[in-house]
Every structure is written in C-alpha cells, then in structure tokens.
C-alpha cells in the first residue's frame, strides 16, 4: 500500500516536472504575422576574459600592449531575424536605428518588435547603411540627429557620414598629446562615398542562435538574445593592431583593417526566453 502511494506520488511529481519542462513547447507561436512582440538583443561588451569596465579596467592586446577604455559607442541598425522555417523578418528601417553606449546600460538592450516565432538567426549592420547616410535631414532624428541626438560625436560634419564605431582610451604606448595624456582614438566610419567611391566599412553581421539557444518570441514575454561583444577582437584578428603604431585611426585606409577585425567581435552566449 505504501508502495502504491509512493508510485502515485512519483508519477505525480514526474508529471509536474515534465509539464514544467515542456512549458515552452506548449506555448506555440500564433502563426499570425501581425501579432508582434518585443525581442530584446543585449550587447554585453567584454574584453577577452574580462568584463569591460570604463576607465578602471586594464587589458592587454595580442601585441602585448596594456590599455584602458574610456569611451565605447557603436551603431546597430537594419535588424533582421530568421525563423526555423527559414522565413526572414526585417524590422522596419525607421525602428531599427540604435546606438550602443557602454556608459549607458539601457542602450545595451536593443529592443525591436517582431512577429511571434522561433528565431534561429539574427542579422544586423554594425554601422549605418549608405541610404541612411545620405538621408534627408527631416528623417535624421533620434540617434541619427546630427545636432547631438547621438550624444555628440558620432557624426563627421566635414566629410558627411556617421562614425559607426568609436572607441577611445589610454595606453602608455600611445604618444603623449599636448595635454600630456597617452590617448588612443579609433573613429571608424565610411559608407562608400556619395559621388566618389571611397572606403566602405559597413559590416553586416549574422549570428547563429541554434547552438546557444534560439529566441522564442511570444506575446506577453520578452526573449533576450544575450550577445557577448569582445572588443579585444578589434585589436586581435587577421591583422593584430598595435596601439603604438596606430594610436589614432579615423577616416583612413587602415580603418578597413580595424573594421574587419571588429566584425568578428559578436558571439551568442545564451538566450533568455
């Protein structure tokens, strides 16, 4: 008798256990494309094995140079997601301009509206696409407002275009500027040129979500795709960048090398569904 109770109890416990495990399976997407929900993409900036700490953390690049980071901002635009059936959804362009700022925690959670679904792949542009770069002033609002909507300094007014990626900091190997600081400055942009071709550092990044966890977008919930953004990759890549050799890189040919390097800095860590 005691055994029967034990079996019933075990069955009940097991059933409860399985039910809770299969919770996600039971909530199927509605299949209605017009039903949209919020999808969050977290840009968690790190430096190799360490978390990025502005101003205080000390890091070392592949050529052995120590450095600190004081400023990090980059544009994330043109977001697309692909579901398990291979169907792609492009977030409307106007709702797809973001500026990630290491000094502003909220800016590191990029939130877009997508149809319900199971998403296996995420695509975005690191930078600002060429059409947006030549867009009418009336449409340049929010983070694209050249008056400082991007909190100043993410726009080249003398050679019109947005700075896609901007990182500044200090390193003893960087030459001293007139104020005595050993600063490095990487301001990377270049959308290809308006009426004469020039450097194009627009990077389209696709992140596979199947290994670390697909994103299940459901109404009433907010899935969060947690990306690790390893800024050490900006230095360490196909060409290792030396701060001593290149303390300042802005609108110059070498910026393409840096952009190639940093295009590899995104990895999918996990998804909170």
């Amino acid at each position, binding site marked *: 008798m005691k055994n029967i109770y034990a079996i019933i109890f075990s069955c009940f416990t097991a059933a409860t256990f399985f039910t809770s495990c299969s919770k996600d399976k039971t909530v199927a997407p509605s299949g209605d494309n017009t039903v949209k929900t919020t999808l969050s993409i977290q840009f968690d900036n790190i430096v190799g094995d360490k978390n990025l700490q502005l101003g205080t953390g000390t890091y070392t690049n592949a050529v052995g140079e120590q450095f600190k980071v004081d400023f990090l901002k980059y544009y994330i635009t043109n977001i697309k997601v692909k579901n398990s059936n291979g169907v792609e959804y492009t977030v409307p362009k106007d709702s797809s301009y973001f500026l990630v700022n290491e000094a502003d925690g909220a800016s590191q959670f990029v939130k877009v509206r997508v149809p319900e679904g199971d998403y296996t792949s995420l695509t975005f542009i690191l930078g600002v696409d060429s059409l947006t770069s*030549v867009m*009418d*002033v*009336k449409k*340049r*609002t929010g983070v694209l*407002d*050249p*008056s*400082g*909507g991007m909190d*100043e300094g993410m*726009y080249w*007014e*003398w*050679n*019109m275009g947005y700075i896609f990626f901007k990182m500044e900091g200090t390193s003893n190997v960087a030459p001293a500027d007139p104020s005595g600081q050993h600063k490095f400055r990487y301001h990377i942009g270049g959308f290809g*040129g*308006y*009426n*004469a*071709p*020039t*450097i194009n550092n627009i990077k389209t990044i696709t992140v596979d979500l199947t290994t670390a966890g697909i994103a299940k977008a459901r109404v009433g919930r907010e899935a969060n795709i947690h990306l690790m953004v390893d800024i050490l990759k900006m230095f360490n890549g196909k060409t290792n960048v030396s701060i001593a050799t290149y303390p300042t890189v802005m*609108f*110059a*040919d070498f910026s393409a090398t840096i952009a190639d390097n940093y295009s590899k800095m995104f990895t999918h860590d996990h998804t909170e569904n």
Partner: protein
Amino acid sequence: MRKYYWCVAAMIAFLIWSCQKDKNQEPAFEGFVQPAGFPVPTYNVAGNPVTKAGFELGRKLFYEPRLSRNNTISCGSCHLQTSAFTHHGHDISHGIDDRLGSRNAPPIMNLAWNTTFMWDGGIFDLDLQPVAPITNFVEMDEKVSNVLEKLRNTSPYPELFKKAFGSSDITTATMMQAMSQFMIMVISDQAKYDSVMRGLASFSEDENKGYAIFLQKCNSCHKEPLFTDHSFRNNGIGAGPNNDSGRFAITLNPKDMYAFKVPSLRNLAYTAPYMHDGRFYTLQGVLTHYTSEVADMPTLDPLLKTNGTPGISLTSQEQAQLLAFLNTLNDKKFITDTRFSQETQ
C-alpha cells in the same frame, strides 16, 4: 446736392487710398525662381519650398551670432554680402576667439546648383552644411544642440519657426531647412554677362574678344553660366605650407591629391584673394600663375598641359581682354540686394 459732394469726396478718398496702397505694396514674394539660362537646380527645392517666412527666418539665422559658442560669430561674419559673401581681404578667415582657419571662405552664391560644398566637397547636402562651421573648432566651436536650445529660449524665434513651419518646435531639420531657404535664394544672375546672354545688352569689343578666349581656354572647367563644372582639380599651384591634400582627404583616392573644387568666376572683383588658401591677391596674379607658373605635379589636371608643357598660353593682350570679360561677371545688384542684407531683417 449734398449727396453728390459726399460721393465725390468718397471717390477722391478712395483714389488716394488706392494710390497709397500701390505705393506701399511690396512685390509679391515669389520664392525660388530658376533664372533664365540657368540649368535645373541640384537642390531639391520641392522638398523644402521657399516661403517668405522661411526665407526671412533663414536670413535671421544666417546673421545670428548665437550660432557660435560665445555668441560672437555669425555666418555673415565671414560671408559678407559686400564681398559677394566671402571674407574680403582675408586669405584665411578668423573665427571664434580669432582662431585662424586653413582655407579661404567660399562664396554663398548660387548654392542651389552646387553638387557638393566646401573646397574639398566633403559635404553633399546643403541642409547639413551649416553643421560644419557651427561645430568647427576655429569657426563657431558650438554644438548644434546648444544652438537649438538658445533659439528655443530666444524671442522671437519660436514664433518665427511657427510661422515658417507651422510648429514652434525648433529642430535640427527646421533650423537647417530655414537656412537652406535663405541660402538657395542668394542667387547672382544680374551681371552684365547675364544681360548680354538674355539679349538685353552687348559686350564691348575687348569683352567680346575676352569671351572668345574664355570659351576656348577656360570654359572646360569654369563652365558657363555658373562658371564651374563642380569638379575637383589640381590646378598646379603647388602644395602650401600646411600641405593641404584637398579632395584626397575625402575620397582617399591618390588621384585626388591636391585637387580642390573649381570655383565660380562670378563676382571676382569682390572676392579677392583667390584660390583655396587665398594665396593670390589679384586676378593678374592668377593669370600669371596659369600662363607661366603652373607646377607639373603627378596629379596636375591634364587640361592644364599642352604638348607636355604645363600652363595656358595667353599673350598680355589676351590677358587684358580676358580680364575685360571677367569684369562682366561682376553683379553689383547681387552685393547690394537688400533682400540678402543683414540690415533688412
């Protein structure tokens, strides 16, 4: 009888009133009008139609020193109407705190036809052009967001923006659009040359000969009627002490090294000195350069070479005739037009 007198009195009063009305009535505001003989403008006028309120607001902003960090420098500080909107007598300009720039202030003139702005063409949209001088360290050294904030707190700007754009909100877009409305209206098309082309006047003998020389030797770059083809060329003046790379800084194309925008030849009498760094103080100096001082550099414009020899051959008589023609491009009405002047606002 009394009624009759009243009638006459009323009629006389009406006549006087209507006469006065005509006298006081300003000509109707026409907005942007493409001058006869000019091509279709590059600027998208339909996207920002010029209204009287918008134009007048743009003019006020053009002469507004609040655009600068310490409220001392306006656009008009370096773009003086009496100098055809250049900085007469200055090879390079002094901006805020008397900081010196590195290039000669180009004219605000016929900008609706410009394909790019600045000597190196780094700006391709007039609506975003003012951001550059406002934020430049040696010019106004201010942030556009601060300018907007100052304007929001300065009467009568909110009211003027409401009149021009239907909302007293002052944004980057409305500020820039108002400034563009003023700038595209600053048109120089009333020189003697224009009258001749419209059949209303004729060239003197020297001017006519100078025009023929111009067509043969200058027009391929300084293309009429705007007297520029908007291209970038190295005209062989050689790098200055600051080794300004010109267009190269924008395109990073080695072929563009030391190339600068071909400037218009209109209003030369008012716009000395000449070239991107204002190195020539007289037109004779410019002609001497082209006839005998063109430096043979790897990126020298091929049009400035004949049979492998750099320069343009011009006898002293031809030079005098050419100068006579160039004088017909001076537009006195343009530099005295009260619609554009600081005093009018």
